[in-house]
């Protein structure tokens, strides 16, 4: 597109910029993870004379290890909830609406997501607070609870996580569902398949790509999220991100913090790869059963 020389200098500039501000920081974090923090008096300084895995072992022990497990549990559960909520919404947007209303509803889904994150969390805290709006609303409809005890529990963490990430599941899923060729569904219909059968054998397998994209998009940032759990769950909302942040900002054990961050990345990559393999497996299993069903039908006729 551009002249060869220009393109080359642009490429070098780009590499230089990202090497300086992205690759180098990531690299130094990797090195720090293998060092050890000198002493409390030399806060923040990391001794790199004796490199070893001790930080990683420490990260897997109490109290980090259990928190890591809780984070995984929370993220898996919240991602699943996001999927269950996102599917019907994405399906409705992509397949039941005209082009114009589709854009409007999509905008409605994304609009709150563009607003200030803290603003949204504040709103939830007001709504869920013990004598807050939810309390008032329940009293108004005649349900006289003494007070609402959702805030600062794990349930509140779930609400916060699902709330913050569900649009990220809806978007890719809606895109995939919208791109399904109507002729394919028409053909299934012409061949006498019932709506549910069409959904099960045609729409759903194709939409797996969107489900996988949604899962990855939601799960990856969610596992590292540390503000939502602490804001919604208080002391009960400890996730791995909070521990990383506290090692960097308060604990001043940077090598341990770096090791936990690296651990987080490793876990995420492993899960993303597993997710991808699983989707490939599910897809081929679906195809196999479908082929078998067709063969059976052919044999019957």
């Amino acid at each position, binding site marked *: 597109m551009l002249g060869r020389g220009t393109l080359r200098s642009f490429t070098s500039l780009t590499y230089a910029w990202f090497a300086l501000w992205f690759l180098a920081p990531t690299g130094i974090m990797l090195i720090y993870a293998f060092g050890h923090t000198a002493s409390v008096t030399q806060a923040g300084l990391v001794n790199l004379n004796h490199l070893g895995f001790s930080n990683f072992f420490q990260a897997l022990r109490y109290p980090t290890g259990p928190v890591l497990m809780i984070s995984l549990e929370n993220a898996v559960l919240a991602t699943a909830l996001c999927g269950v909520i996102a599917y*019907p919404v994405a399906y409705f947007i992509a397949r039941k609406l005209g082009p114009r209303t589709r854009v409007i509803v999509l905008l409605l889904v994304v609009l709150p997501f563009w607003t200030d994150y803290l603003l949204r969390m*504040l*709103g939830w805290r007001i709504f869920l607070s013990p004598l807050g709006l939810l309390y008032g609303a329940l009293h108004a409809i005649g349900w006289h609870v003494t007070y609402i005890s959702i805030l600062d529990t794990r349930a509140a963490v779930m609400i916060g996580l699902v709330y913050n990430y569900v649009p990220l599941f809806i978007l890719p899923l809606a895109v995939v569902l919208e791109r399904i060729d109507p002729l394919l569904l028409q053909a299934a219909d012409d061949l006498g398949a019932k709506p549910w059968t069409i959904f099960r054998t045609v729409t759903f397998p194709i939409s797996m790509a969107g489900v996988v994209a949604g899962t990855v998009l939601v799960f990856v940032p969610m596992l590292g999220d540390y503000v939502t759990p602490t804001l919604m769950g208080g002391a009960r909302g400890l996730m791995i991100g909070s521990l990383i942040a506290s090692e960097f900002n308060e604990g001043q054990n940077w090598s341990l913090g770096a090791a936990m961050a690296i651990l987080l990345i490793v876990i995420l990559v492993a899960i993303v790869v597993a997710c991808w393999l699983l989707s490939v497996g599910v897809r081929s299993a679906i195809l196999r059963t479908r082929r078998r069903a067709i063969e059976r039908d052919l044999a019957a006729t």
Partner: protein
Amino acid sequence: MKTTGANKWLLGFITTVVVLFLFLPLVVVVVFSFNGGSDAFLWGGLSTAAYGQATQDTTLITALRISIEVAVATGLISMLVGLIAGLASTGRGWAHRLLFILFVVILATPEIVGASGSLLWFVTLGVSNGFARLIIAHSIFGSALTALIVRGRASGLEPAVFEAANDLGARTLTMLRTIAVPLLAPALIAGGLLSFTFSLEDLVTSVFVSTAQTTPLPVFILASFHSQFHTDIFAIAVLVFVSTTVMFLVALLAMGGGSRQRMRRGLRLLGATTSEPE
């Protein structure tokens, strides 16, 4: 395909409930920004006092000013680097293709990892200026995002235009100024505005790299979450919300090239860029 009526109503109902769920906290905050009571979390009558207070609160205004300054610088740097990086990634060959992967990796990295890495690096290099730290840390994300958008638009352009300019002996700068920038303007504006809003609202990276002297608004709000919380923070948050929403709509329009019909494409492009890590 057949649509059964009951099905459609059920799906529509679920969608309505989800949309209401998504808007619920926003409505609450907007309503509570007009709260006249002394406790920010308990309703004490209608009042616009909070908006008046917000304009008087110097620490709040300072935090907002820092946020805006950082966001403007981030937007501009992201446009410049995004243009260069985006064009660089359109070339053929592994070095250019690797750039595309790099952009996606940067956008897909959990923010807390990037943030802690940036902090370590700034301390190592001795970058202690809070503005510089915030702007650089935000610009990494912003420039990768803008580069992806620029790349998307550049790959849709006719290469012959550039070849013709090249054949006619246009210099690099002339070509950039007269051809590349005007043609890529929608992508650049969209990328710049998205980076601006990202920077304005960023919390995680800012918590890590900001200093005591340069506290941007989200960090300030977070700090006051558990201590002294005043209603005027709601008022400022609502004002920021209104302005960023306008920004985003402008970005979307720019992405689609301005016309209303093209806005749809912009929306889809946004979906495509966010689903890139897959």
